[in-house]
C-alpha cells in the first residue's frame, strides 16, 4: 500500500504483525529511500525533533548514537525521520541536519526529511521519539517508545530497558518480540496545521 504525498493513511496502517506501510522519501543528501529497497534487512524508524527535551535526553547522553552504531553495525537500516513542518520545532534544512549529525556524532543510515508530514501520518507517528521496527519480510514487529522511561530526566537513561535493542536482539535470534508495542512518549510530532 503506497501512499502519495498529501494523502493521509488511516491510523491503523502501522499495526504490529501486519505489513509495514510502503514509502519513498528523500534523505538529507537528496537520496531517495524506498522501504522496498531494504527487503531482507531489519529497518528501524526513529521519529526525531532536536529541540524536544525527550529527544535531547537520548542525544545529550549519547544513548541514541550508541544504539544507532550498535544496530547499524549488526546490519540494521536506521532511518531517522523528521516530520516537523516548516517554522515548527525540529524542522531543519538538509544542510542543518547534516551539520547536526556531525555535531552530535549520530550514526543513522540516513535521515528522511518529511516536512509535509506524509511519512509521519502514514505511520501515525505521535511523539518524538517514536520508534518502529520492520523485519526482513516487511512486517512491522515493533511500534512504540524507545524505552520504559517516559521522562525527559537524563538520569533515567541508565538502567532503562531499551525496547528497540531488545526487540532486535530477540528477532535476530528468531525469537518472538516480547514487547511488540508500548506507549510512545515524548513531545508531539510538529505536523503542519
Amino acid at each position, binding site marked *: 500500500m503506497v501512499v502519495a504525498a498529501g494523502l493521509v493513511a488511516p*491510523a*491503523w496502517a502501522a499495526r504490529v504483525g501486519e505489513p509495514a506501510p510502503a514509502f519513498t522519501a528523500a534523505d538529507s543528501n537528496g537520496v531517495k529511500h524506498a522501504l522496498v529497497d531494504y527487503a531482507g534487512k531489519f529497518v528501524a524508524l526513529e521519529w526525531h525533533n532536536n529541540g524536544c527535551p525527550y529527544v535531547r535526553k537520548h542525544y545529550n547522553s549519547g544513548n541514541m548514537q550508541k544504539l544507532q552504531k550498535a544496530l547499524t553495525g549488526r546490519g540494521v537500516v536506521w532511518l531517522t525521520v523528521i516530520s516537523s513542518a516548516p517554522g515548527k520545532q525540529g524542522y531543519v534544512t538538509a544542510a542543518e541536519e547534516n551539520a547536526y549529525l556531525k555535531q552530535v556524532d549520530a550514526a543513522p543510515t540516513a535521515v528522511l526529511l518529511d516536512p509535509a508530514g506524509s511519512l509521519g501520518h502514514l505511520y501515525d507517528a505521535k511523539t518524538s521519539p517514536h520508534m518502529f521496527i520492520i523485519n526482513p519480510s516487511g512486517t512491522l514487529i515493533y511500534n512504540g517508545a524507545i524505552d520504559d522511561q517516559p521522562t*525527559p530526566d537524563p538520569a533515567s537513561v541508565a538502567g532503562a530497558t531499551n525496547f528497540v535493542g531488545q526487540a532486535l536482539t530477540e528477532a535476530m535470534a528468531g525469537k518472538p518480540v516480547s514487547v511488540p508495542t508500548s506507549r510512545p512518549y515524548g513531545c*508531539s510530532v510538529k505536523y503542519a496545521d
Partner: protein
Amino acid sequence: MVGPAMAPSWSRPVAAEPLTVRLVCATDSVQPGKPLRVGLYFQLARDWHIYWRNPGDSGEPPRVRWRLPAGFRAGALQWPAPERLGSGSVIDFGYRESVLLPVELQPPTTPLAPGSSITVSAEVSWLACKDVCLPGKAVLTLTLPVRRAPAAAPAAQALFRQADSRLPRPVPKAWRTEATAAGEFLVLTIRGAGAAKAAFFPFEPDQVDHAAAQTTTPIPGGLRLALRKSDQLATTPASLDGVLELDSGRSYALSVPVLARTNGAAPP
C-alpha cells in the same frame, strides 16, 4: 499571576518559566486529628498547558513526592476535568491558564499539640508545553501552625471551591451505563443523563484512540458514544474508566464493565 503575599496557606511561589507553582492549603492552620487539604496550584503563561493524569498522545502529567511530618500520609492527586488539547493526529488532555490539584493528607494517629507547627514539602515535576515543551521541577514548602480551630482563609477557600466544582462527580443513581466492545470500537451507552452530547476522557492511555472523533448518537432515553480503540490496545479492557463530560459542562467519573458483543458489528 500574583497570589496573596505571605498568607500562611500559600507556599512561596516558584516561578519556573512558563509557569508559577505553589503549594496551597485550604486552611490557615492544621487542626489536631483532622485531615489536611492541600493542593498544587499552577498558573501558566498564555497558550501553555500542563497535562492530565492521562496526558493523551504525548506529554506527561505532573508528579509529586511528599516530604511529610511523622505519621502523615498523602492521598493521591485529585484531577479536575481536563480540556482536549492539540489538533490533527496528536491529541492530548490537560489544563491551560491555571489549575489546582487537591490532595488530602491524613494526620498521625497521635494528634498534634496546638501551639506547635508542621512543615509539609512537595517535590513536584511537570512538563509544560505550547508548541515546544519545557520540563520543570520545584520543591515547595509550607509551614503551618497547629491550632484547635482554623481562622478564615478566604482566598485559599475560593481556590479549592473552584477546583472542587471542576472535579468529576460520582455517577448519579438515576443513570444506566453500559459499555461494549464492537469491532474497532468501544461503545459507551448512557441513559438518564439528559444530555445530547458528551465527551469521554479515559484514565488509561492505551484504550481509546485519543485523536479519533467520538461520535454521539441519540438513543431513546440517552446517548451512545462510539470510541475508536487505540492501536496500542492488545485485549478488550475489563472496564472503561474515565471522565464523561456532558454538554452542560459537568463531568462525571465513570467505571463501566465492558461486555463483548458477539456479532462484531460496528455501531450505527
